[in-house]
């Protein structure tokens, strides 16, 4: 179990924005994961996708890590931001752009 946790931690720390998702950013395999990918892409955020469907240990491990029962899960600079509902709500209210800017994440102007 500790090795899974170590792996998760290293993934979260490996880049500023990391999305644990079902499928890949290019080929999401779940509507909720797909929505978050679309939002991040719309904002022009560079992020790393970790496909939880590749490993049941990671899929279960990430839920325990954040005490959060569902995928996708978005992490920014090591901090758990939320799942699909929260990311969408923040995006719709303009908070997500602000939050990312505060964290010093580069947004490509579309």
């Amino acid at each position, binding site marked *: 179990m500790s090795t899974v946790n170590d792996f998760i931690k290293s993934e979260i720390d490996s880049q500023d924005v990391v999305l644990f998702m079902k499928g890949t950013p290019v080929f999401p395999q779940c509507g*909720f994961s797909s929505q978050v990918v679309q939002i991040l892409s719309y904002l022009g955020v560079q992020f790393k996708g970790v496909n939880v469907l590749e490993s049941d240990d990671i899929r279960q491990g990430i839920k325990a890590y954040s005490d*959060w*029962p569902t995928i996708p899960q978005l992490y920014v600079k090591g901090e758990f*931001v*939320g799942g699909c509902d*929260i990311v969408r*709500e*923040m995006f719709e209210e303009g908070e997500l752009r602000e939050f990312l800017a505060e964290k010093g994440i580069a947004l490509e102007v579309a």
Partner: protein
Amino acid sequence: MAMDAKEIETLIREGIADAEVRIEDLAGDGDHYAAYVTSPIFKGKSRVAQHQLVYKALKGKMGGDLHALALHTSAPKD
């Protein structure tokens, strides 16, 4: 494995003090719901903390029996 809307509502009411709960069956298939939960205990809590309280009230069913529940939480406006 579907869940009844009433059962979701009951669990949330039991788990969260003074919660106002509204459940919508989004697809009519008993498997995709939206829940609107308002409670004074959400006041001052982050969105993540608010959703975690609802997930706790659902006693591990979220992500299991309950496949899709779009959550909207808020504290009552004064």
